[in-house]
């Protein structure tokens, strides 16, 4: 038996074809053909039963997983969360201050909420050391990169979705300004380079 073999009525019409036009008035053939008429009748009943089952399942409060299911999923997620890199803000004799890439991303995303028509998406932060390192990227072995070195600066790569109505260059400029101000205000370091990619438009 062929897998995509569609069942047919005795008159040669496929069930698929009858189904496709079930909401329309019967065709001249269907008006005359008894087999088509009874197939239409049966399929209409099925349509009605399908719709009613879909509605009742959707509203059936007993057809939901227990709260423990979501808790178990979130527990795994929390336990396995990737430890993000930390960025040193400054080091003094009385102790060091670091911020995780995740926390800094939150500052950035929160700043972005002030710009209408922008949804912040993924955010990746690099530390570029000072001096003339042509490769630019300096990832110290260890989990902590430092932004407090002389001349080092942050490179923020933020991807966003924009509302179709926004004027992108102007909006992105004010987004960049917002982020820069927020990082200086919250974290006390200069934001350095802020690269913004509009990767998608969302429907409003």
């Amino acid at each position, binding site marked *: 038996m062929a897998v995509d073999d569609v069942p047919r009525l005795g008159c040669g019409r496929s069930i698929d074809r009858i189904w496709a036009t079930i909401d329309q008035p019967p065709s001249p053939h269907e008006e005359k053909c008894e087999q088509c008429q009874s197939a239409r009748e*049966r*399929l209409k009943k099925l349509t009605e039963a*399908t719709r009613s*089952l*879909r509605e009742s399942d959707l509203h*059936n409060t007993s057809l939901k997983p227990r709260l423990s299911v*979501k808790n178990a999923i*979130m527990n795994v997620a929390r336990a396995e969360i*990737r430890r993000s890199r930390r960025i040193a803000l400054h080091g003094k004799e009385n102790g060091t201050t670091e911020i995780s890439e995740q926390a800094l991303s939150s500052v950035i995303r929160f700043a972005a909420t002030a710009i209408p028509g922008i949804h912040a998406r993924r955010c990746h932060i690099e530390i570029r050391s000072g001096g003339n390192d042509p490769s630019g990227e300096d990832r110290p072995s260890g989990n902590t990169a430092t932004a407090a070195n002389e001349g080092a600066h942050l490179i923020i790569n933020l991807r966003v*979705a924009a509302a179709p109505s926004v004027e992108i260059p102007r909006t992105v400029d004010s987004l960049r300004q917002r982020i820069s101000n927020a990082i200086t205000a919250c974290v006390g370091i200069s934001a350095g380079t802020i690269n913004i990619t509009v990767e998608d438009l969302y429907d409003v």
Partner: protein
Amino acid sequence: MEDRGAGFESELELELDEGSIVARAQDGDLAAFEQLVIAYQDRLFRLAYRMLNDRGEAEDVVQDALTAAWRGLPMLQDVRAFGGWAYRLATNRCLDLLRKRSAHPETITDLEDLRSATEFRATYGPGGSDPAYEAETAARQDSLTTLLNTLPPEQRACWLLREMHGRSYAEIGATLKISQSAVRGRLARARHEIAEGMSEWR
């Protein structure tokens, strides 16, 4: 994208678009991931329950599928593919369980569960307060779910994904690793079988 009939849930009724929520979850944002869990757990449960007729197993499927989604998130290329992917993870887990079941036929379905779901349902017919109409709706839904359970698992998955969840032919095909025309064929056969069965019922 194919059009979806009225009556299906919107993908996510939140301020943020789903793509942005998925992207944040990819960055390890737990609050964003939790929103995805909330948005998908009920519909995946309904799918799994109608596939397996067992509440506990359906919960396991939801848990496994969404845990796998968390682990695979960083690899997801297109944020818009999340929904289809979550459905695929859940559907394939259901099919695996059913394969195991057929290898161990002593496993029985949870009849108590089936009954409680049936009892609740009658009040949600479109007829409102007409008891005769409600009774008929309930009877029709009963025969529909009974017939659904006689279909081969992959055909049942096709029917549920399309008719209960409004998923696209392309996505269903990708889930079951069959062509779109094969999806149409299976759907047509499933509808035919159920429609025939329902007419014999009365």
